[in-house]
């Protein structure tokens, strides 16, 4: 072992120079990322908070200081929040359950499954706006709506997917599930494939039924990926916008007016209400932080990491 004292002063100075240079180098490497973070995340968040304290519009945000008055939210904020919660709840359950079921079905290597994987994944590549347009045609209650054409041919009555306030939100959830399930399914499937077959054989020898094996072995062993899904689907659903904007534009009535629609509405479609929109944006962010903290604090305890 050589200690520092066995080097000459000149060598020590050289070593320190090398160390300083590598320190500078590492900061230079992450500088672009830090700049992006500052410019596109930190700065907008801070300025959004400042705008939320003012009365104004997009052209002139700082007309008059109002303090925290914008945080005294209007009743329609609660409607938007409830709609968002409903959307998130439905999307979470539907996407989670379907991706687990499809993954369980597809994870064995069969020719059919390779085709099925592609079929499930392709919608994920379609742009949200295009998907929204296609599905609003499919779900239309006009004579050209494909779903209703099939329903009528089979003798069922017309379903007013997007035109009925009781079904509109679920219809949007359905479209987004179709779009996203293949991606999440792929994540679950690769987790399932990493479970050694001996564990399943051992469970069979232990007399475990396939349902019990699924709940006692498969689900706990893919729990890290399920937790990842929980976080990404929750935060993703909270921010849902494009599909709602295209398919219902918040209607019928206020049935599908989610938080991001509310923010868009107050920021750009009305005059001098930018402060409300920014306050709602800040509240939405805090809510997402709270939900994520809850997930990490309570739900993550049940997650089994290898």
């Amino acid at each position: 072992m050589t200690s520092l004292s066995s080097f000459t002063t000149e060598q020590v100075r050289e070593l320190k120079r090398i160390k300083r240079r590598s320190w500078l180098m590492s900061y230079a490497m992450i500088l672009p990322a830090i700049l992006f973070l500052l410019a596109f995340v930190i700065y907008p968040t801070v300025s959004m908070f400042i705008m939320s304290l003012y009365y104004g519009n997009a052209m002139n945000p700082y007309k008059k200081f109002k303090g925290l008055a914008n945080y005294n939210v209007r009743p329609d904020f609660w409607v938007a929040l409830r709609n968002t919660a409903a959307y998130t709840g439905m999307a979470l359950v539907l996407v989670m359950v379907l991706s687990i079921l499809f993954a369980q079905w597809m994870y064995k290597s069969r020719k059919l499954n390779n085709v099925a994987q592609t079929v499930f994944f392709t919608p994920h590549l379609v742009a949200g706006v295009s998907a929204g347009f296609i599905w609003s045609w499919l779900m239309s209650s006009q004579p050209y709506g494909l779903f209703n054409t099939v329903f009528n041919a089979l003798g069922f009555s017309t379903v007013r997917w997007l035109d009925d306030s009781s079904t509109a939100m679920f219809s949007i959830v359905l479209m987004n599930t179709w779009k996203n399930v293949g991606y999440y399914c792929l994540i679950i499937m690769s987790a399932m494939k990493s479970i050694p077959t001996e564990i399943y054989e051992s469970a069979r020898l232990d007399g475990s039924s396939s349902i019990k094996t699924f709940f006692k072995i498969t689900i706990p062993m893919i729990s890290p990926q399920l937790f990842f899904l929980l976080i990404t689907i929750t935060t993703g659903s909270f921010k849902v916008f494009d599909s709602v904007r295209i398919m219902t534009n918040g209607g019928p009535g206020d049935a599908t007016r989610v938080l991001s629609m509310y923010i868009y509405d107050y920021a750009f479609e009305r005059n001098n209400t930018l402060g409300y929109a920014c306050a709602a944006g800040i509240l939405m962010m805090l809510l997402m932080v709270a939900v994520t903290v809850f997930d990490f604090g309570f739900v993550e305890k049940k997650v089994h990491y290898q």
Partner: protein
Amino acid sequence: MAEIVFEKVGKSFGSTKVIENLDLTIEDGKFTVLVGSSGCGKTTLLRMIAGIGPATSGRILMDGKDITHQPPEKRDIAMVFQNYAIYPTMSVRENIEFGLKNKKVPKEERDRRIAEYAEIVGMTPYLDRKPSDLSGGQRQRIALARAMVKKPSVFLMDEPLSNLDAKLRAAMRVELIELQRRLGTTFVYVTHDQIEAMSMADTIVLMEKGEIQQIGSPEEIYHEPANIFSAQFIGTPPMNVLPMEDGIRFGVRPESIDMEHQRVDGMALYRKGHIITREMLGAEMQYKVRLSDGTTIMVRSEENDRSDLQEDSDVWIMARASRIHFFDKDGKHIGHGGPDSLLAKLGGMNE
């Protein structure tokens, strides 16, 4: 307690036949070791007994009852896997308990048995730990306890020691032998390691390319090898096999050779040789010797203090008649120590 009988059993994966027309009886209450190189079909046989890789033809009987198509949980067996197959999300206790719960064993009985077998394998202090906190040897013990707690009639073990380090492996070998003696249960143990097979087995089933080469006690396999494969599989280094006339070959184990500078009378085999390498193995010496016809043989000697037998020295290679095995042209064992007609043909005596 159970006897297992294979009747004309075959197994193919797709169009590849791994095992064909195999007959085998595994005796009740004995420690049977299936040994062979990888791909010889030993694990396939074990999985057939377990019911997780069913036979494609023939029948498997357990105590006279046909179990060929019985699901694994209906068979009275337990299995220990090479990678242990511990349930990583369950605690040690839950791992051991899982099979009992599925069998609907009442709670008090479960607790009693878990305590008993955790004690046997020395895992009592770790019952509430997760497997990820434990060492390889400890996981191995969980796998053993999980198998034992079911009180099966047959224990199946698929290379259970191969993931352990050498020291632990030797210790576990002794423990497994003791365990089998104590439980008196049928053990079927798969390994590729001849030392494990020799040291643990009551009966060794030696396999190669899906066929059984020899069945016998370790003594029989060592002293009466059925063929050249069997003779060379057991023993390190393997038996020296040298050609004679008419395709007949003779074999002599490295440890059965006497090596001296002077010819010693009363031996059956004499050859002149030249020591190429000399290895000191501690208790023993191992030599590589080139014979005058150019072939090389291995010699092993317990005389570990012979400073006169150095590399590059000329020696006499000799062996007693009783130590010499003869094999016919198909590699089948003819006998050892005779017949005299073959002993006389060994040649080289008057070199």
